[in-house]
């Protein structure tokens, strides 16, 4: 299965940049639109500035059923005809490209910055100066507007939510982000350098292992390094521990938002116990330092393996109690069923990923569709649910926790022997593009590294799953009670900094 004129590649594969076909923009546009109506979806769409002041657009498409990726490019200057009207899933990418490079997608239905980074010199479009302006408004005598954030009531990251309400009912929610913008992608250009791995580990701190894994894969693909099996397994254990810890936290948070305190309270504590297991491996509860290009930075002694196994057993046991209480409580079920629905066709159209997509019945999981690292040798069954509501998103997490626990047990009991890390020397191969996908706990993480003549990054594009999914949250709120916003928000639990970069 090919995507027409684009070049094929696999997950964690690097190809010479010259092999990526550069099409006229009209043909590029047509190719992306045709591919997305034929089973492909857009993993990433980004611009790389050229020396002649033009912008090279790269599209990375994924075909989940066939396990294929494909990449194509086009050169644009001040503007081009927007793809969004025919391919809605790229709407956010086109807004990002316009903001980053000042290239206007003509005919984009809602062209606004997504991060509010300073405008570039000589930019053509007149953008709103801050996140708190130019919201979509509903007019009417009894319509009112609710503004929340950027500073929220809880201990969470900043973002602004603007609700258009009719009584309690939310007619429209617009989410304005960018408060967390720290200039990550800009600083990655010219790397790898000594801060690169730390950007990866902190660009979304709750997904440290996920992003470090994706970075490792991208570098290993360009450097043609094979990670030793033991290193792969330890990375997989780290990734699944991260998934379990965050999913448990989310279940607890959802329980808390419907006022079911037993599960909320137990999950808060059990989540901490799981984070402590990650710290047993690498000293950090968030997996800082666990993954380095070439493999894992820490090996596991038999003693630590036993400790981890015991921790996994007791964690799984404690969680089962909290989980059963949650699902066995009629009052909880009444609060989460049918709330915050995203229908399957909308999910496909806007390109959701991760548990949010699986809860809509879309069987999409990088570990299965585009296997990487340890998942090429061992499989974690994926699960889906059809309702697309808060219940579904909670249910998917609950099942995934169990499956990840089984995976970790399996790995710990039969860890491959040998080294954990292969030598990884710089500089990287010149003029390559590598695409690295990882299924983080929120969904697909996509890193695309492009090296220049000197083997340094001329571009390093990161797509956190939140980038695809924030719009899903806005959609889920339509027609809902505004008081259900916290619950819907927790059921997605998206990253602000991973989006803002």
């Amino acid at each position, binding site marked *: 299965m090919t995507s027409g004129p684009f070049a094929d590649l696999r997950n964690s594969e690097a190809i010479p940049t010259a092999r990526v076909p550069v099409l006229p923009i009209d043909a590029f546009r047509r190719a992306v639109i045709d591919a997305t109506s034929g089973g492909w979806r857009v993993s990433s769409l980004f611009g790389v500035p050229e020396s002649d002041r033009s912008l090279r657009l790269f599209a990375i498409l994924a075909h989940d059923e066939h396990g294929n990726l494909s990449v194509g490019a086009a050169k644009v200057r001040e503007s081009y005809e927007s793809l969004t009207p025919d391919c809605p899933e790229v709407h956010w990418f086109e807004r990002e490209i316009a903001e980053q490079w000042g290239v206007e997608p003509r005919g984009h239905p809602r062209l606004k910055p997504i991060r509010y980074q300073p405008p570039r010199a000589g930019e053509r479009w007149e953008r709103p100066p801050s996140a708190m302006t130019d919201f979509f408004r509903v007019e009417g005598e009894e319509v009112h507007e609710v503004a929340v954030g950027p500073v929220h009531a809880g201990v969470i990251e900043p973002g602004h939510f603007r609700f258009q309400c009719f009584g309690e009912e939310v007619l429209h929610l617009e989410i304005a982000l960018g408060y967390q913008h720290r200039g990550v992608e800009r600083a990655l250009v010219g790397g790898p350098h000594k801060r690169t791995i730390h950007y990866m580990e*902190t660009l979304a701190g709750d997904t440290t292992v996920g992003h470090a894994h994706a970075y490792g894969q991208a570098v290993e693909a360009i450097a043609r390094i094979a990670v030793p099996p033991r290193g792969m397994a330890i990375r997989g254990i780290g990734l699944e521990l991260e998934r379990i810890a965050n999913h448990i936290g989310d279940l607890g948070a959802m329980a808390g938002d419907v006022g079911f305190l037993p599960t909320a309270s137990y999950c808060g504590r059990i989540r901490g116990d799981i984070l402590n297991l990650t710290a047993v491996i690498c000293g950090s509860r*968030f997996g800082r330092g666990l993954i380095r290009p070439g493999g894992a930075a820490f090996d596991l002694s038999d003693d630590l393996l036993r400790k981890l196994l015991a921790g996994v057993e007791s964690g799984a046991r404690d969680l089962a109690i909290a989980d059963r209480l949650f699902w066995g409580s009629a009052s909880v079920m009444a609060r989460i069923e049918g709330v915050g629905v995203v229908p399957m066709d909308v999910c496909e159209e806007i390109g959701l990923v991760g548990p949010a997509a699986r809860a809509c019945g879309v069987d999409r999981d990088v570990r299965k569709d585009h296997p990487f690292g340890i998942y090429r040798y061992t499989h974690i069954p994926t699960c889906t649910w059809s309702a697309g509501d808060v219940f579904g998103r909670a249910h998917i997490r609950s099942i995934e926790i169990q499956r990840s626990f089984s995976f970790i047990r399996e790995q710990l009991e039969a860890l491959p022997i040998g080294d954990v890390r292969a030598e990884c020397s710089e500089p990287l191969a010149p003029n390559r593009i590598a695409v690295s996908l990882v299924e983080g706990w929120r969904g697909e993480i996509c890193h695309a590294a492009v090296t220049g003549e000197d083997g340094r990054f001329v571009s390093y594009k990161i797509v956190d799953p939140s980038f695809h999914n924030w719009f899903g949250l806005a959609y889920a709120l339509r027609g809902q009670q505004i008081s259900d916003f916290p619950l819907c928000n927790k059921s997605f639990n998206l990253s602000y900094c991973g989006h803002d970069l």
Partner: protein
Amino acid sequence: MIRTILARVRQGYRTTEYPKGPPPVLPERFRGRPAVDASKCPDGCRECAAACPTGAIDVSAGVRIDLGKCLFCTECETACPEKAIHYTGDHRLAARKREDLILGAEEMQLAEELSGRLRTLLGRSLNLRVVSAGGCNACEADTNVLTTVGWDIGRFGIRYVASPRHADGLLLTGPVTENMREALRKTYDAVPDPKIVIAVGACAISGGPYIDHPEQQNGAASCVPVDLFIPGCPPHPLTILDGLLRLIGRLRRRRRP
């Protein structure tokens, strides 16, 4: 109902006894306060400083590590040819003054408690508004975890409150992004006087991995006066708790753990 009660019984009592009892055991590989044996350093060697991703190490007059910039990544430990640097398991890192975070040969000056009126006002009840201004959600998560049953900071009269108007101070995470500067300032102004500010994590103290990026402010102190610095990337919950308890005078006259 009976199932809920049975579950409660099976979950048991899980709050740490600390500070009445010993602190929770940290994992072997936990990286706490670094220790430098400068006597091992050969003349002119600056391998550690060259390896540090955030420029936390100054070798101009003996090795000095700025804990406010340190990511605890151990690149310096790996780079040191003489094994003069190692990371200990000591979780106590909090200081009241920025310069106290610069670790040299002498003993570290840990955070002293609030004095005078602030001590009287806040010592038994400290309400904090947590503001993330570019934090990566790791400091936020380990700040938040202190409210879970495992740590239960409510025991010490410390609460995270929903509004700055209900707060005695701010707990800040993140390097203070350009896009959050105004919101942070407004939140600070909304806290009634007298008020305190606590900076948690390398980003909030110095910018951390984002030091000198034009998109951020190199930490909280650029915008608001800071009363307590808690280093780490992110600091362990025990490190944050240690800092908070020192500030309100709950760790006085205790043996070193």
